[in-house]
């Protein structure tokens, strides 16, 4: 038996002060990063293959659509500038810009692509649209109008702005009233623009109370369009307490709701079947 001195004992004691040794822990027993598990399942998939059916094959549509798909705004701009000389604007939208965008959106909704890819594609598509509008000296035909706003007293507009991008990318005209918008201004805009639907965003419980008021006034005026409400404080229980109210959980649902509204599906039915019409 070896003899040891007190100094050594003290050294041992110091090392023994209650402490947690990270190195000894098997973190795999505590948590799993399920996104890594999920990604491994999809590693074999090639995004381009999955959207082949959506993408045009003939030029110049093919190249433009691919540039949108890649989010390359500069390239879209130059290709469209070239193409517009020979091809009608509407055809370029329908056969090149829109398909490229749709492919990205599909991959996003299928859980393969990510939001930045969608946003960059939308920016690229918008660059193309800008060229076309400038070239044709007017607005391109849109699927319909959507009025958007952030509730009075509320200044958080990220959710609204994301949804706006998805709507524009899908071919809708957005009337953006901005943030901190009074009730009557929203009602007036709906009367004036006759949109297929209206949206509202609120972060606070005390600003979302504007929504039932808006809904009430719209109903009184016979404007029975879906009123999609979203944002931090807004939940399904709340929107079901007033007419027209439909829950908006994620930005990418917006075009689906607009499609349904344009097909004259009633707000009651959209509310009832929202999981199906606009899954999150």
């Amino acid at each position, binding site marked *: 038996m070896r003899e040891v001195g007190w100094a050594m004992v003290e050294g041992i004691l110091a090392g023994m002060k*209650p*402490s947690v040794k990270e190195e000894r822990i098997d973190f795999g027993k505590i948590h799993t*990063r399920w996104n890594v598990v999920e990604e491994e399942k999809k590693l074999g998939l090639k995004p381009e293959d999955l959207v082949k059916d959506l993408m045009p094959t003939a030029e110049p549509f093919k190249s433009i659509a691919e540039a949108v798909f890649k989010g390359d705004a500069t390239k879209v701009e130059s290709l469209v500038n070239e193409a517009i000389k020979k091809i009608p604007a509407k055809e370029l939208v329908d056969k090149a810009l829109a398909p490229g965008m749709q492919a990205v959106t599909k991959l996003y909704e299928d859980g393969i692509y*990510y939001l*930045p890819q969608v946003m960059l594609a939308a920016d690229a598509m918008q660059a193309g649209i800008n060229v076309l509008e400038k070239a044709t000296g007017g607005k391109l035909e849109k699927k319909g109008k959507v009025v958007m706003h952030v509730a009075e007293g509320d*200044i958080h507009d990220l959710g609204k702005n994301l949804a706006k991008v998805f709507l524009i990318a899908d071919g809708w005209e957005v009337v953006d009233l901005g943030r901190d918008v009074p009730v009557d201004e929203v009602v007036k805009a709906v009367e004036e623009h006759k949109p297929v639907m209206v949206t509202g965003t609120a972060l*606070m419980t*005390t*600003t979302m*109370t504007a929504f039932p008021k808006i809904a009430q006034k719209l109903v009184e005026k016979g404007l029975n369009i879906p009123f999609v409400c979203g944002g931090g404080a807004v939940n399904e229980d709340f929107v079901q307490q007033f007419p027209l109210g439909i829950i908006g959980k994620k930005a990418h649902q917006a075009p689906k709701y607009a499609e349904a509204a344009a097909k004259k599906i009633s707000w009651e039915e959209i509310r009832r079947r929202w999981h199906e019409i606009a899954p999150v």
Partner: protein
Amino acid sequence: MGLRRYTRMEYKSPDDIVFGKALYPVYERFGVQIGAGFVVPEIKVAPHAGTEKELKTFVEHHKQFTKEILDLCLQLGFKHIMIEQEHVFQQTWNKDYAYETAHAQVELAEKYYTEYGLGVTIRHTIGDIRKVEEPGGLREGEHARHMFEAFEACASAGVGDVAIETTGGKEILDWAVARGDVKGILFGIGVCGSEDMAWVWPQIVKIVTKYGTVPAGDTNCSGANTVMFLAGGLMDREVAHTVAAMARAIAGARSLVAVEAGALGPLKDCGYENPIIKAITGVPVCIECTSICACAHIDVMGNLNRAVGDVYSNESVDYHQEFGGSTAEVWTAVTGNAAALANVALQAGQEKTLRDLLTLSDKYRDPQGLILAYDNAYRIGKAITEYGKDPYLRAKYAAIEAGKIILEAYEAKKIALTRWELDSLNKALEIFNALPDDGEKFKEECIKEYYGKVPGFDPKNYGWAGK
């Protein structure tokens, strides 16, 4: 600007940082000590929709839930509580709303303190209701004026402390985060955000200290918290969590400005950057994490921030009834019991063990938790203080350090990353490393890039008048 820039760490070792203890404790009215060896629970209740319509019902509502909270503290044997009101728009916009609600709560705090000895402090967090798009913008607009008036109203009503979540750079950040544009994130939070705080904060400190109210802190709600919210859970696909982690490191460099302007803490919670700032400054901090704030926000950082927090907060809860009581009561009970566990550990001399367990339960769950673990937060703090005099550089190097921390853990096989997370990280590091070291140059570059493209962005709002 009269800011006291931090160029060295107040804490000499990360191991010295622990919940409930700060180098510079704060004492607030009615018997509350923060960072003085105790964790104080905090409760925030969002007034129930409709109560704001009239001043009378609004004040009554505040009284009611404040009384419920204080009674519950007696019921459960709690010794201290912080009650925070995050202003709704009406409360900041109308100074009588601010004053009357604050006054009603302060009266109740005093009553329970006097009658029982219960420690109670009231915090009012004034809403940053400024709008870049209004005439006068962030600095000269009508909303800015109302905002400062609300600070004065609450301080004159006798609240223990005031806080805010300033929104400078929000328009840039919103635009950039959705696009994974890390340069924009750095510019929005690290440059515009810091610049705005440097303008706002000296004014706050001046207004409230004359009433004996503590100027507490500022958190990057509109930046780091927005990024975290959008980043969501592991299965979400909006923001790579590696990028979200870097955004938080940048927010650490930004929110530090409040302390540099005279904020004393406990620093405000929701941006989650406080572990970094506590490491730098030794000032006490409020924290939140999912185990105590799931009512407001569910995230991959479940317990981690409790490791270094001096005040434990539930972030926010709508006032309504649950089986167990009102939400004011339910979440007071949740934060109060989390604080009790921490306080037992402090009394038992086991605070470092508990700190480490809280930390390790999330450190390798996600890159966002990884960089906030107190040892890594300290590293980021060091990167910040190394460039402490330059808000841009310190934000940039904070982000780079965060990136390094993640890469090291990934290479050591301590954390798993998806390809997307890893690619986003590498790409971001490449971008950051290529940026100039001259702040003015970076600013010029960014103004050129974003002005006209990002809705609402106007250099004038940040005092860059030349543009």
